[in-house]
């Protein structure tokens, strides 16, 4: 197997707006690859296109399977876990029911999930919509970890969270990346520097840079492509 994920000439148009304009990059096996860029350049759309959640053209290969045009649930079952940008836990059902829905293998890794997030066990019967933002993020990541899927698509896990929680979630993803390939969309560059070994930068719906995470040490480079200070 050459790479965990391979995108070639990916185009997405949403409501007349050409959001992705020929995105091409691959994600090698193992570790964390960060997908970076300013707000609105198409990072989330790229993840959604990989999962078939938005219509796209181009070639998408996931774990050596051509998934172009495939239904979302079939793509997931190839071995893709997804942590969406806004957690998207199901607020009207319980924590336990949220986890049960995510089960796709005979022996889901509840022991590991509860070891990482003990609160999910004690709050099992609580409606997910009544959890705090941090607890909802725990649940969202827990759903992604249950099945030992080899590829994880993780969209801004630190968004809206307190610094202490960001550090905790970064540690969890670091551990997850020991056994899975992670494609991480993240605005928090300190998290990216800690986790990622490789970066892909998007701008105006196109890939403008592919390199090592160490490239983020260059202040001018970071300001030029991401529009933020290198220390953020």
């Amino acid at each position: 197997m050459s790479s965990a994920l391979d995108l070639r000439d990916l185009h997405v148009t949403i409501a007349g707006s050409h959001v992705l304009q020929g995105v091409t990059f691959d994600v090698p096996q193992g570790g964390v690859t960060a997908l970076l860029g300013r707000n609105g350049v198409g990072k989330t759309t790229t993840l959604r296109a990989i999962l078939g959640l938005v219509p796209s053209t181009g070639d998408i290969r996931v774990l050596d399977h051509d998934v172009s045009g495939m239904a979302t649930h079939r793509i997931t079952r190839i071995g893709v876990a997804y942590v969406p940008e806004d957690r998207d836990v199901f607020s009207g059902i319980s924590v336990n029911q949220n986890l049960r829905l995510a089960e796709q293998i005979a022996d889901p890794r509840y022991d590991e999930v509860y070891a990482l997030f003990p609160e999910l066990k004690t709050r099992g019967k609580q409606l997910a919509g009544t959890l705090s933002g941090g607890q909802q993020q725990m649940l969202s990541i827990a759903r992604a970890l249950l099945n030992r899927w080899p590829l994880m698509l993780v969209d801004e896990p630190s968004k809206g969270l307190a610094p202490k929680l960001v550090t905790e979630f970064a540690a969890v993803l670091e551990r997850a990346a020991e056994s899975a390939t992670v494609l991480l969309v993240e605005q928090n560059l300190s998290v990216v520097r800690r986790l990622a070994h490789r970066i892909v930068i998007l701008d105006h719906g196109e890939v403008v840079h592919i390199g090592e995470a160490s490239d983020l040490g260059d202040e001018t480079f970071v300001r030029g492509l991401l529009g933020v200070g290198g220390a953020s």
Partner: protein
Amino acid sequence: MSTFLSITFSGLALAGVYFLCAAGLTLIFGLMDILNFAQGAFITLGAYAAYELSLHLPMSVGTVPIFLLAIVGAIIGGALAAGITEVVLIRPLYGRPMSQVLVTIGLDLAIVALLEGIFGSNEVAISVPTWVNGATHIGQVVLPNAAFLALGAGVIVLVSLEMFLRRTRYGIIIRAGVENRGMVSALGIDVGRAFTLVFVIGGALAGLAGLLNTIAFNSDFVTPIQGDSLLIFTFIVVVVGGLGSIRGAAVAAVGIALLQNYTNYYLGNHPGWSQVGNLSVVLLLAVVLSVRPRGLFASVA
């Protein structure tokens, strides 16, 4: 007082019929974003399926078994029609909600025309056991037996649906899908199966409602347009209850049916006021939407 109690009981029975029609419709909209205008045809098909069975089963079977089989026939007739509709007409149009709505409107018109072609536009009568057309007297209050069936069916279906939605995996998938079906798919779940299941449930309940409406409110007569006559109130129940909410549909069905019955009885006898019951329902819809634009219980299945 006895009149008031009779009207109230009749209103609750009508609520049972409205709820049966609305339960599937609200789940279909909540999960699939489709306003299913063919629900009226499923209601009518259920009634005609019951009529056909009651007509062709030998009387030696007995009137009660024939009636019970007619109930089963109405449920299966509605479920089959809805299942075939979803697989053949709706599924190829996923992602095109406007086309799906137009298909259901066309299907409804086509089924009504087909039924008129087969059975004529005049009403036909279903044979029912004597008890169904009788009444139970409690003191001064006269309660039609058919209304007991409509009310009982509504309550049983409400409790069963609540249990199904809360305790079974498919029920939980449907509730989660009403909230965010994209995320359900992203967890590896085939939402298409849930779509078909919801359509079949909706059709089965519509078919049952068609038969119960026939025996409780239509003097045992079936007509090709009876489903469409119910459909307008069904949509109002769904919107007032909150699109996607079963509990909302139940509460709205009770409120709307009681209001309709009370206004019809107490105000409908005035010259020119014969439609006051229908008018009151539309006014209630306007008031609820102005106060709670997403209905009483928004999208909580």
